Structure formats: structure tokens, C-alpha cells
């Protein structure tokens, strides 16, 4: 009997030898697998424990140096050395320091609709924006996926997230996702697939879909999926990969565990407050909170579309004297576009500092660790205690627009008031 399928069920079935439905355990072929400099060493050591020093699909296996990039310590430089030598031995693809954040590069250069992508990073779900079943795992799972070219998965139940209604001025995908996480909670979608649809999703560019998919894991979800459409096709075309496009969408009568309907025309700018991503408030409720550092970047919001929004607000303005403004383009392509469009000049003239494409200060490894009692407003995806390198620091999360407005005023500011 034909069973109508969700996006997750459809993709997993295509990669499995049998038909699948939610809650089945399946063994799937993996199309793309990757790790970064925080998770590679352990993965490489696990592969070696198997008694092999090879990977199943070298041209679909990628290592990224992005979390400590360039390396701030000799221990991490040695991890980089191990990654380079393993890449040479196995013929896998290496993106060395300065080459961008793994999730951005996976979307720009590798993932295609209908793929299964597994990565040793929780935000691997970002590639769901292109219609790929993309999910994060630990180093050992990735080691096995690299070595055997497959993994085991439990087919997730799906929450349908129906988003209708155009955004108001200065409201973006980040505000929507913070709103959703605030509503369902940090464990509201544990093990589930989030499947986005609705009139607002239809007109949304891939950049914003990536922001939504990226943060699916902040609600506990396994993946955040989108049908592929004309926007996907145009995105792949822009990155010279039009031939990677294929149409994928859920069946009309697919079974959803839950449907969440959101009228996105009613949303206003949102922030997540310390120390959890689901501690969400409107900007209005927290405006005036003094901020010591603003960070615009990351796999959540460091794309050219994000930098344009921030630059529009910062143009001709100066950042507040008592605050540092850090900007990190998510990929080399983003950086070059930002230079060509005069965006980097705008940031520099406003008093911001620009760093090489990488994770920047998001992970607390380098490039902007908070001092005791300091507050950062960041466009990243996580604000857990200690996230930015100091458990005595405080982190708020927002859109690039709210971050830019805050950078000018020195306190959390509604971008509609600038």
C-alpha cells in the first residue's frame, strides 16, 4: 500500500533498502559527511581504532577548520596538523583555516535537495534549507559514517510549521525562529523533524531558510526541512550548481504529529535572554540593557543578506563608544561580496572590526571572549552559560538588524526605532 510521506520519510526511504515510516529504525546510505576542528581528532582516532586509514567516499567526506581559525593555541595547531595529514592520506576534502564555517560551505558547495548529510556538529541541520535531510551527530557516529558510507537513523515524527503572513519591517527569520523556540521550548521538538511551509516560507530566500533550519536543533529537533523550489534552484545557480537541483516536497496527505500555525505578520523583533535559547522576549521587553560587545556573524546570521541588513542600519553611524563591534563573514564568498558592495567599508567606518571567515567568538575559543559580568548581543544560535568562553558572561541572541541598532546605541535597541 502506498503510504503518503513527510519530507523526512521520503528522503530516508530513498536511502534505505525498505519502505519507511516514522519511528522505524533504518540503515541509510550517507551522501555527505563532515567534521570540524573540534570534532575531527576524535573521529580520526576512532577510524584508526577500526584498523583502517581510509574513508568510503573521499570526494563526499569533508574536514573543516573553522572553530579555531586561525589557531589560537599550539594544541589546536596540532589538531590541525593531524587533520591535514589524515586528509592527505585518505584523499578526503579539506577546508583549511579561513575557508568559512562548515555549514555555510556545505550549503554553498556540497548539499543538494534529497541528500542525507551527517556532520559532527549540532548545527548540521542548516542544510535542511535546501531540502537535504541534514543532522548533527557525535564524532564516533561520524567516524563510522566516514568509514562505511552509512549510518543508522530512527525515522523522526514530523511537526509541520505553517508560517503565513509577511513580516513587518525589521522582522526577520531569526525573530520567527526565536519566537517558535520560545513557544515550544528547548526540548519541545526533541527527536522530531520540523517541516516548514506556508506563504511566508514560499517567498523566503535560502539565506533566511538557513537561519530557521540552523536553529531547529535549539528546539531539540533532529532536522529542519524545506521543500525545494524556485528559490532553491536560484540559490544553487548562484553557486554554480544548478545541475544539483531536484524537486522534493512532502506528499499531500503525509502524517504529521503536530501542526503549528504562525501568523508571521504579527511578530515583532525578538531576543533570547541568558542563559537558554528558549528564554525569549520581545526586544521591547528588554530594551535598555547595556551591552559590551555586539557580534554579527556565524552559521545562523553571517551571510551576505545579513551583512546587508546590518550595514544599512550602520551606514553613516558610529558604534557606541563603550562597546566592541565584531563582524565575521560566514564564508570567503560572503566576504568578497561584502567588499564589492562597500559593506566592509561601512562596518570599518562605523568602528567595527572584521575577522576572517570562521565561527569567530561564538564558541568561546578565541576572538572576543567575554570578561566577567560582560554582556554580548550576538546573532549566533546559542547563549548557554559559558558559551562565549566565560561562565561569568551574559549572552543575548537577536537578528542582525537588532544587533546593528544595539551597536549604535550601546544598549539593546529595537531596530524600528533607528
Amino acid at each position, binding site marked *: 500500500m502506498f503510504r503518503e510521506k513527510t519530507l523526512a520519510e521520503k528522503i530516508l526511504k530513498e536511502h534505505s533498502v525498505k519502505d519507511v515510516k516514522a519511528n522505524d529504525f533504518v540503515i541509510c546510505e550517507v551522501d555527505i559527511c563532515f567534521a570540524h576542528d573540534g570534532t575531527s581528532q576524535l573521529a580520526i582516532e576512532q577510524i584508526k581504532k577500526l584498523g583502517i586509514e581510509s574513508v568510503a567516499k573521499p570526494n563526499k567526506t569533508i574536514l573543516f577548520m573553522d572553530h579555531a581559525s586561525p589557531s589560537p593555541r599550539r*594544541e589546536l595547531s596540532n589538531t590541525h596538523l593531524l587533520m591535514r595529514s589524515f586528509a592527505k592520506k585518505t584523499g578526503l576534502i579539506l577546508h583549511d583555516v579561513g575557508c568559512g564555517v562548515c555549514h555555510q560551505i556545505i550549503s554553498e558547495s556540497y548539499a543538494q535537495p534529497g541528500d542525507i548529510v551527517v556532520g559532527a556538529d549540532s548545527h548540521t541541520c542548516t542544510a535542511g534549507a535546501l531540502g537535504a535531510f541534514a543532522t548533527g551527530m557525535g564524532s*564516533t557516529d561520524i567516524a563510522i559514517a566516514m568509514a562505511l558510507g552509512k549510518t543508522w537513523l530512527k525515522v523522526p515524527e514530523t511537526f509541520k510549521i505553517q508560517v503565513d503572513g509577511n513580516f513587518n519591517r525589521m522582522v526577520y527569520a531569526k525573530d520567527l525562529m526565536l519566537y517558535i523556540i520560545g513557544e515550544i521550548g528547548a*526540548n519541545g521538538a*526533541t527527536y522530531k523533524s520540523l517541516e516548514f511551509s506556508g506563504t511566508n516560507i514560499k517567498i523566503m530566500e535560502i539565506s533566511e531558510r538557513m537561519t530557521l533550519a540552523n536553529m531547529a536543533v535549539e528546539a*531539540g529537533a533532529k532536522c529542519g526541512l524545506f521543500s525545494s523550489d524556485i528559490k532553491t534552484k536560484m540559490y544553487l545557480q548562484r553557486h554554480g550548481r544548478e545541475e544539483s537541483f531536484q524537486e522534493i516536497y512532502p506528499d499531500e496527505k503525509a502524517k504529521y504529529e503536530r501542526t503549528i500555525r504562525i501568523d508571521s505578520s504579527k511578530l515583532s523583533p525578538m531576543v533570547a535572554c541568558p542563559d537558554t535559547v528558549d528564554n525569549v522576549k520581545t526586544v521591547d521587553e528588554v530594551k535598555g540593557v547595556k551591552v559590551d560587545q555586539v557580534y554579527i556573524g556565524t552559521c545562523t546570521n553571517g551571510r551576505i543578506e545579513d551583512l546587508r541588513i546590518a550595514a544599512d542600519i550602520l551606514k553613516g553611524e558610529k558604534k557606541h563608544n563603550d562597546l566592541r563591534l565584531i563582524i565575521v563573514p560566514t564564508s570567503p564568498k560572503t566576504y568578497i561580496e561584502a567588499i564589492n558592495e562597500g559593506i566592509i567599508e561601512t562596518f570599518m567606518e562605523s568602528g567595527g572590526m572584521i575577522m576572517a571567515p570562521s565561527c569567530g567568538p561564538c564558541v*568561546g575559543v578565541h576572538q572576543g571572549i567575554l570578561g566577567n559580568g560582560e554582556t554580548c548581543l550576538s546573532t549566533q544560535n*546559542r547563549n*548557554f552559560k559559558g558559551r562565549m568562553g*566565560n561562565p561569568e558572561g551574559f549572552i543575548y541572541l537577536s537578528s542582525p538588524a537588532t544587533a546593528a541598532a544595539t551597536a549604535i546605541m550601546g544598549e539593546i535597541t529595537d531596530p524600528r526605532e533607528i
Partner: protein
Amino acid sequence: MVLKGKVWKFGDSISTDLITPGRFYHLRSNLSELAKHAMEDADPTFSSKVKKGDFLVAGKNFGLGSSREHAAIVIKLSGVSVVIAHSFARIFYRNAINVGLPLVSCNTDQIDEGNTLEVDLERGILYNITKNTKMNFQPLPILMKTILKEGGLVQYIKKHGDLKLV
């Protein structure tokens, strides 16, 4: 497998940043050194007081956040023999089993710090010796149970040669 141990109790939403903070990123190539900082931002004294075989008990969504498997590894290296929580974040759940750290999901509201517990992983029974109460829990799915029994995913693959559903 039946385990017996003393409880260290934590609350809800213990993130991987609290378990193994990002500021120790450079120690990920030196796991025994990294383990000295296990749970440091949730309880700075944890690694000095935990004893081999102790139980770590927590509330909802234990292990949320980053995919860093080091979180499960440092808990195991610190001597903890089982983590019992109301619920687990998905990636941590897989990671723990993959490195041979047993997990139990059940209501932990009535378990207090210092209680002595006995856990039967096969049969899904948790016995609180201190309070003389008994609770049932759902044992692991068969595939995960087998991976755990072999001591982790690498050992499982070495023995079975491949991933197999049964």
C-alpha cells in the same frame, strides 16, 4: 547489567557547555586532562568529589547543545557509571551509547543527592535503596542496547563488521 551507586543530582537543561566548556576546547586532544573539568560550570567541585561507580542524576533535556562527544566521554572518565535523567537531548543520547556510557530516562523528581540507587538496565528497573521505592523505565531500543553491550560503536563495528538492525 545491574549497577549500584550514589547519586549526584543536577537540575534541568544541563548543556554540553556546562558539561565540558568551550574554553577547554584545546584539551579535546587530551581527554584525561579534559575530564578534570567535567561538569565544571554546573558544579566546579564535581570532578574532585565524584567516585568511581557514582550515578549522575538530572532533570529535563540533559546534554542539550553542541554535538561534542567529549561531554559523554568526560562524564564516563570521571567515574560515573550511569546517567539518569528525565529526558536527554538527542545527540548526547547517541554519543553516550557510542562511548559505552549507560543512560536511563525516567522521572527523577523523587531522587535526591546522596541517595543510593540500584539500576537493572536489562529489565528496566530502578530501585532507590535509600527511600525503598521502585520504578520501571523503558530499556534501550535493541540496536542501542547491542552497541552498549559491546562497549561502544567502534567495538560493535569491529565485532559485527557492519551496522545491522538486529
